């Protein structure tokens, strides 16, 4: 994650909500955040607790497990983003997942999450993703079908400069989950590569 090495983020007095059914993981993430300087970290173990927390106080940052029971992080993210009356609609959402296949990462991005962090997490990995949200803010897009951080990407073209040929036919193939992506590939899928904002 370039540009993060010397960045300092100030988490003091920010209300950070950690949502994961794994109590040990919540303790670990809580410990990391407090190490970063956070002093108001809340924990919930399921999505009902999450919505209760969001409705009872102002939350500044949400770290949510992709498989948070019973609804799952994707559905929760969409719910938070799509409700136009919701004051948490633009809440920064960081999804945590051990499944880092390309399809999962794209689903996370398309749900409106700001970033996805691969589990197991490291302190530097988490710090840099938080810094990325702070120092590389993406504009929000509000359309009839999507509300969330801008997902547009620069089209790099086909590998090796080979384009589609006139005689090539489009065929339907089965969905491919693909291999697990590492954190830098995940970051790239979330990066806003629009002109001048790479």
């Amino acid at each position, binding site marked *: 994650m370039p540009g993060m090495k010397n960045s300092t983020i100030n*988490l003091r007095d*920010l209300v950070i909500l950690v949502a994961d059914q794994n109590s040990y993981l919540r303790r670990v993430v809580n410990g*990391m955040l*407090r190490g*970063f300087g956070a002093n108001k970290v809340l924990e919930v173990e399921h999505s009902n607790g999450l919505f209760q927390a969001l409705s009872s106080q102002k939350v500044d940052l949400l770290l949510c497990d992709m498989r948070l029971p019973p609804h799952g992080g994707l559905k929760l993210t969409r719910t938070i983003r799509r409700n136009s009356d919701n004051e948490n609609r633009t809440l920064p959402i960081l999804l945590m997942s*051990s499944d880092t296949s390309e399809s999962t990462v794209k689903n996370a991005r398309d749900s409106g999450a700001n970033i996805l962090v691969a589990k197991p997490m490291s302190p530097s990995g988490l*710090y840099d993703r938080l810094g990325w949200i*702070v120092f590389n803010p993406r504009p*929000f897009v509000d359309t009839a079908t999507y509300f969330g951080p801008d997902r547009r990407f620069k089209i790099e073209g086909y590998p090796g400069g080979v384009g589609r040929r006139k005689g090539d036919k489009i065929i339907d193939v089965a969905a491919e989950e693909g291999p697990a992506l590492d954190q830098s590939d995940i970051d790239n899928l979330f990066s806003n590569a629009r002109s001048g904002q790479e």
Partner: protein
Amino acid sequence: MKKNNYPEAKLFYADTRFERQARKPGGTERKNAIEKAQAAVDDLKVDFGVWIDEEFNILNAALAELEGDPRDKGALERAHKSCSQLRDVGGTMGFQLVTFVARTLCDILDAYIGGSPYDKEVIACHMDAFKLARLEQYRHLQPEDVPEMTAGLLRVVELASIVPPEPGK
């Protein structure tokens, strides 16, 4: 030019309280913040051995129930939950091999959820791998440091994930 029926997309910067506050001076410098966070993780390592043994026992019990009745969805879900927890935390706490073994076992349990036939030998070899990965002399190793075990488990996942066709199809 043909116009679509959708209204124009609105584009705006939210500039949330998180972004505003996090940019303010007075934060913990990156290197220092990461060291403090790592120290907090290290403090938790003291009781991680206890937690991992408890979780291993829960997993073992759920898998024993599954062996008694491979169609027991509750046992399968409990085993998957416990295995996922081991997978998600192991690496952070310095138990890299535990995360690797848990990841392959989760893949197998996912395959069982998807309809692959239960095979007690597959489960048994993973539980043996867990016992090895839990040992002090193995826990810091990466999967590439134990290539035979890694290749073996990945091959087991490959074979165990095959869903046989339904009769007549």
